[in-house]
């Protein structure tokens, strides 16, 4: 039973991280109908930024909590700047082009950012400082749930609640939903759609950056290539849940995380990715719109 619970928590942790990244995919898709393939790289840049900030701060002997908070904020801001710029440079000029054009532009941006970090930083794996300590109060359950798992779960939950409130109750949240549902009408009531799109990229990038910090400190190493697999997995999760749907992205991520965790735990870790992507294939065959996605109906 302990083993089951251990796997359960490992799966939820994994799923939470996927969710932080998947939200960026799904929000961008919801608003401009683009799969932003450079999103995984934004997450990777978040991990690198927090790595650099945390390393520098720990040299100066900052307390751990301060390091975590400053690194998270710095990563979120820096990644948002990247997300904002990528949209402005690579997608906005193609707003009226056929759908394939921005998609290819996104793949180009992804490859560019990977290689940029490779050249600017290094191709080696870098040891990521352990930002999350082992809490004393977690001692009794430490063999089942690690402290960092707990921190990831709680942080993700807080971020999700904040995001839900933002989308549901704020002016920009309403404008985002309105724009996603009917862009022309949003313009006609006075929404500046460009600004809403920028805001979407900024929010999605900040979430991915926080995911980057959490996972890097959990796993303990990073390199320029981590964005690729994480991005593909999170994208899978977003499709699984129904791309364009925010609760769908969270549900899809948790399902994916749990599937991987149980498959690894009970069968073999060699098949982790096989299970993840088999799940995707099955969902696409039997429910192409995803778990919570709506079938697209074009009204006359």
């Amino acid at each position, binding site marked *: 039973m302990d083993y089951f619970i251990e796997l359960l928590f490992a799966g939820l942790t994994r799923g939470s991280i996927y969710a932080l990244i998947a939200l960026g995919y799904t929000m961008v898709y919801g608003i401009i109908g683009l799969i932003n393939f450079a999103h995984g790289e934004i997450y990777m840049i978040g991990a690198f930024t927090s790595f650099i900030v945390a390393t520098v701060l720990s040299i100066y002997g900052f307390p751990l909590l301060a390091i975590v908070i400053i690194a998270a904020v710095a990563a979120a801001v820096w990644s948002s700047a990247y997300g904002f710029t990528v949209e402005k440079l690579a997608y906005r000029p193609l707003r009226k082009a056929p759908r394939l054009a921005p998609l290819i532009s996104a793949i180009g941006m992804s490859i560019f950012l990977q290689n940029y970090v490779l050249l600017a930083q290094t191709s080696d794996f870098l040891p990521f400082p352990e930002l999350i300590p082992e809490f004393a109060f977690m001692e009794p359950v430490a063999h089942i749930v690690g402290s960092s798992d707990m921190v990831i779960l709680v942080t993700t939950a807080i971020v999700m609640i904040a995001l839900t409130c933002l989308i549901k109750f704020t*002016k920009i949240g*309403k*404008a985002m*939903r*309105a724009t996603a*549902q*009917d862009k*022309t*009408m*949003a*313009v*006609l*009531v*006075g*929404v*500046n759609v460009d600004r809403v799109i920028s805001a979407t990229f900024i929010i999605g990038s900040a979430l991915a950056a926080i995911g980057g910090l959490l996972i890097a400190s959990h796993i303990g190493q990073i390199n320029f290539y981590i964005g690729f697999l994480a991005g593909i997995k999170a994208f899978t999760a977003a499709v699984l849940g129904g791309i364009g749907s925010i609760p769908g992205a969270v549900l899809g991520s948790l399902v994916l995380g749990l599937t991987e965790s149980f498959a690894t735990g009970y069968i073999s870790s060699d098949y982790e990715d096989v299970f993840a992507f088999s799940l995707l294939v099955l969902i696409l065959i039997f429910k192409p719109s995803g778990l919570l996605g709506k079938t697209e109906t074009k009204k006359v």
Partner: protein
Amino acid sequence: MLELRNVNAAYGNIQVLHNIDLEIHKGEIITLIGANGAGKSTTLMAISGIVPVRSGKILFEGKNISKVSPEKLVSMGISQVPEGRHIFPELTVMENLDMGAFLRNDAKGIKDDLDYVFSLFPILADRKSQDGGTLSGGEQQMLAMSRALMARPKLMLLDEPSMGLAPLIIKQIFEIVKRINKEHNTTIFLVEQNANQALHVADRGYVIENGVITISDSAENLLKNQDIQKAYLGI
């Protein structure tokens, strides 16, 4: 209040509007009638800044607005109720109305206007927390008009409000159009295929054919005009 001078507009290479001239005075209800594809909706979209104006001028309260961004136009006082209503389907009725007041910050004024639209359409108050997409066609039309009113427009552009609605509802909608014009002091530019109804509420009318304004006269005269009767009134 609004004046179009020699306006040409095109979608890509296909020119839709040819040298459109028309004028709307403050407080009027003006209708633009014409067949499907004549350029009625394009005229409204050009005024709202969605379809770019190739040449010519659109003057609103004396200012040329042909290059002004759509969101700026809303804050200047031009709101459109587009063809097909364009309700945000997954926003509630209340949220749809909030979106109408998107650019406003005067909480008191917004509250007053909300009370006003609920007095025009009490049914919307009952359906406040329902998703816009679940409303019937008539209710959606009411919501679309209310949403436009929430911007407190000086000029309301109404595109085919009668489309797809039952005769009884159409009658009700046109009654309300008149009320909005009188009580709320809103100038109305009404585009309709249903020429008969439109001419009965309007002060003056324009007829558009293939992107060209062919006739302009008082609504009364247009109703008596034999060509109009044959072409648009089915008499």
